[in-house]
């Protein structure tokens, strides 16, 4: 055969795995026979319905298996046979069994095929290499950790050493306490209570700038100059300086005399601008307080205009006046010294006293309002209206009546609540004053008052004991429930007396109790001493009238019947004691001397006139002691006879 030799060389039979940098090609090694067989065997899907293999329990299994992948997509016609479904299932089962049989044959009878385990090259274990790799990895981890530790130590050392604080460090501190955000190149912060539920319009935005430590570098426009801190806060001018809410209770007729007295919130100085070199934390807190006070006042002023009351509330300038009781008013003022001239016009004359308790409860009320704004009860079911309280939600299924529903809608404004608290405060203070005054004035007996420590802003209770020193077994007891604008007295026997807010009523009541106690204790004493009770009258109609209340009296006869003691006790006229002697020696002597009348002996036992006993000249610690001595003295006296 002559001709052109054609040499055929297979092109790259093997796939190129990698081309190294020097142009050398690394090939993928061709598969060995066993590898390719196992690879092909992986491709066989034994579960497929191979129609052409039906009923062929052939022994040429390996060939067939290699031909399988191009599966013939038999077009199934919808069969009309009733058992068609069953037939296909059976066919499938037959196919699978025959394939299984083939495989078993192949495995068992060695002349078809020999199964050989596929050897996969195990990477050679190189202990030395592993050790080196581990060491290297550990080294890198150690270096990262030690670097970090070093940096931490350095920063701590710096922080400890730092005499001039760093701007970023300060910013970090600021960020941990205040809300900050970055807008463009400026850092803005927020002082307002909006995130806490406030709906006050005033925004409390402040700006944070870096302060160059050299004072000469300051720009002219900078409002405040902090010398120490590298961080500077710019607070809006309307929030500068100090503000507070002043709550005071005043007597309207007597000018500025105050019932309640307490120190001012800022006792050292009048509200004025805070010095420029104060730390930013304090400046921000003060500015936030200004916002808070403004919100309180604006809320109160709005309610003062809206809320209807018999005597309208007044809003004058930065003060809200509301009427508490006749001659007494509550004054809530916003003190904010934005400019000096206005401040001086507001507070002429002596500084009115500030009621810290009411101011605190005012703050509490505002916080409650904020809480209510920010936390709504979840709607239930989810599709229901938002903001319906749980009580209102249950009103339907629990069949609330009309009055209950009306009560539910009634809500009290902040001003009304603070007025109620102020009223209670006034009534409580008055009660306290009356009790103090009376226990000071009445020295003969002890008026001890025990205040209950479980009290609320609208109700408190005091128990009053009236006793004589040395005779504590006999005591007059009553409890005073001090409500918003009245005092309820619960007596020892369960009687309830309602007193109004007027202090005079309580005063009269206690005096009556004292007068009554005198009579009671004399009666008890008489029982002990063996004296006989002749009469006891709680409302006697003779003698001088008392301005308020009734005079009570008691008459006692001595065990022998020859002496009578009459005690008269009135709330204002005090206690009077009279003694009658029987027989009255002077009268009988006169009658005997006149000789006009003949006297039988029995008439000598007639009582004579009563003689007044000067209690202040008697021996004894107090009234009861004196009475005891008097009774003892009179019981031992024998009747003078002729």
């Amino acid at each position, binding site marked *: 055969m002559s001709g052109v030799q054609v040499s055929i060389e297979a092109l790259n039979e093997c796939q190129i795995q990698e081309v190294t940098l020097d142009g050398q090609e690394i090939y993928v090694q061709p598969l060995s026979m066993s590898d390719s067989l196992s690879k092909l065997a992986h491709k066989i899907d034994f579960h497929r319905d191979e129609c052409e293999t039906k009923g062929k329990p052939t022994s040429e299994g390996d060939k067939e298996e290699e031909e399988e992948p191009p599966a013939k997509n038999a077009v199934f016609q919808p069969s009309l046979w009733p058992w068609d479904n069953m037939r296909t299932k059976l066919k499938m089962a037959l196919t699978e069994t025959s394939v299984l049989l083939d495989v078993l044959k192949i495995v068992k009878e060695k002349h078809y095929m020999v199964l050989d385990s596929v050897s996969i090259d195990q990477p050679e274990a190189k202990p030395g290499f592993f050790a080196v790799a581990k060491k290297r990895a550990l080294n890198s981890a150690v270096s990262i950790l030690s670097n970090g530790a070093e940096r931490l130590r350095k920063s701590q050392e710096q922080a400890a050493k730092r005499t001039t604080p760093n701007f970023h460090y300060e910013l970090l501190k600021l960020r941990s306490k205040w809300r900050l955000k970055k807008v463009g190149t400026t850092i803005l912060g927020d002082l307002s209570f909006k995130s806490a539920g406030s709906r006050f319009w005033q925004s409390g935005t402040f700006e944070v700038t870096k302060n160059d430590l050299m004072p000469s570098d300051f720009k002219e426009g900078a409002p405040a100059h902090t010398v120490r801190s590298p961080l500077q806060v710019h607070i809006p001018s309307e929030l500068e300086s100090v503000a507070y809410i002043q709550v005071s209770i005043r007597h309207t007729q007597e000018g500025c005399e105050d019932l309640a007295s307490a120190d001012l919130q800022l006792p050292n100085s009048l509200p004025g601008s805070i010095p420029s070199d104060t730390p930013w934390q304090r400046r921000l807190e003060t500015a936030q307080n200004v916002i808070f006070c403004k919100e309180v006042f604006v809320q109160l002023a709005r309610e003062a205009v809206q809320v209807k009351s018999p005597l309208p509330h007044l809003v004058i300038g930065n003060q809200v006046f509301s009427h508490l009781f006749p001659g007494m008013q509550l004054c809530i003022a916003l003190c904010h010294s934005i400019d000096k001239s206005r401040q001086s016009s507001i507070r002429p004359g002596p500084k009115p006293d500030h009621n810290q308790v009411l101011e605190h409860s005012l703050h509490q009320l505002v916080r409650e309002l904020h809480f209510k704004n920010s936390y709504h009860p979840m709607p239930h079911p989810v599709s229901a209206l938002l903001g319906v309280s749980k009580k209102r939600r249950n*009103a339907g*299924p629990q*069949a*609330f*009546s*009309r009055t*209950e*529903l009306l009560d539910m809608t009634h809500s009290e404004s902040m001003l009304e609540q603070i007025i109620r608290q102020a009223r209670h405060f006034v009534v409580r203070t008055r009660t306290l004053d009356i009790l103090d005054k009376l226990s000071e004035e009445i020295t003969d007996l002890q008026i001890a008052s025990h205040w209950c420590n479980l009290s609320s802003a609208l109700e408190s209770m005091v128990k009053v004991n009236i006793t004589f020193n040395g005779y504590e077994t006999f005591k007059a007891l009553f409890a005073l429930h001090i409500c918003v604008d009245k005092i309820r007295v619960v007596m020892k026997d369960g009687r309830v007396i309602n007193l109004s807010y007027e202090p005079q009523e309580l005063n009269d009541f206690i005096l009556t109790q004292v007068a009554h106690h005198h009579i009671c204790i004399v009666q008890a004493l008489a029982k002990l001493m063996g004296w006989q009770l002749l009469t006891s009258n709680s409302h006697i109609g003779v003698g001088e009238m008392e301005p308020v209340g009734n005079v009570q009296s008691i008459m006692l006869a001595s065990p022998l019947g020859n002496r009578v003691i009459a005690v008269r006790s009135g709330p204002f006229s005090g206690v009077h004691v009279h003694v009658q002697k029987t027989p009255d020696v002077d009268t009988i002597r006169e009658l005997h001397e006149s000789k006009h009348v003949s006297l039988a002996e029995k008439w000598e036992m007639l009582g004579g006139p009563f003689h007044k006993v000067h209690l202040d000249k008697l021996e004894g610690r107090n009234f009861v002691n004196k009475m005891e001595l008097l009774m003892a003295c009179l019981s031992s006296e024998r009747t003078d006879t002729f």
Partner: protein
Amino acid sequence: MPQSCGGRSLNTFNILLTLLLLIRVLSYPVPEGKSGQQTVEALQKQIEVLGATVSSNFTVDCETYGTYQQTSQPQHINILHNSEQPATCFAVLDSGNCLVADLQFDALMNKIKMFYIQKKNARVEAKGLRYEYGDFIIKVGSVVLGQSTSFKGVIVEVEYMPAVVVSECFGLMREFMFSFMPTSVIDATTNHWKTKNDAIYAPQDTVLQYLEHFNNFRKSAVSMMPPMQ
């Protein structure tokens, strides 16, 4: 008769009585020209003479829904509203089981139109004046049935607020009612309290009594209707 003492108690107790005007017309000869409205007015006047004061109006209305399917025994749901419990809707089954629900239950009834349809001309309404007299609340109203505004009867409700158990105050209430109504009417109360005389009052007791009377009114209205030609 007790005078007013103290505030309202939460739990109240009602006794419901009716003056079925139709029956009275049949039983007693009423003077010619005296309408139902006049009867109501006469009763109201008598109560006012006692010294009671008008506090407001009252309304009790009842809608009836029936099952859609005609195959089985028809079943009904009665939806009632009482102005005394303005936020509540009462649903009463034929068996007498009462569901106390929110007002939105009405909307739910619209959703299940497929199963229950509203019966036409089955709306009963009692409207009138609410009187207060010390611890008593007296309601005198006229009953109107269906679309027509024609007068069907008089309904009287007396409530004694301090009590919660019927058996303990029935004598007192009976005596009170006697001052403006004849005894025969007072003793013909509903069957409601016969079984639960010692139970504690709940608002659904009032509604169930109203329903019982409304059903009576309906029956009498049907019997009074002229036969269809």
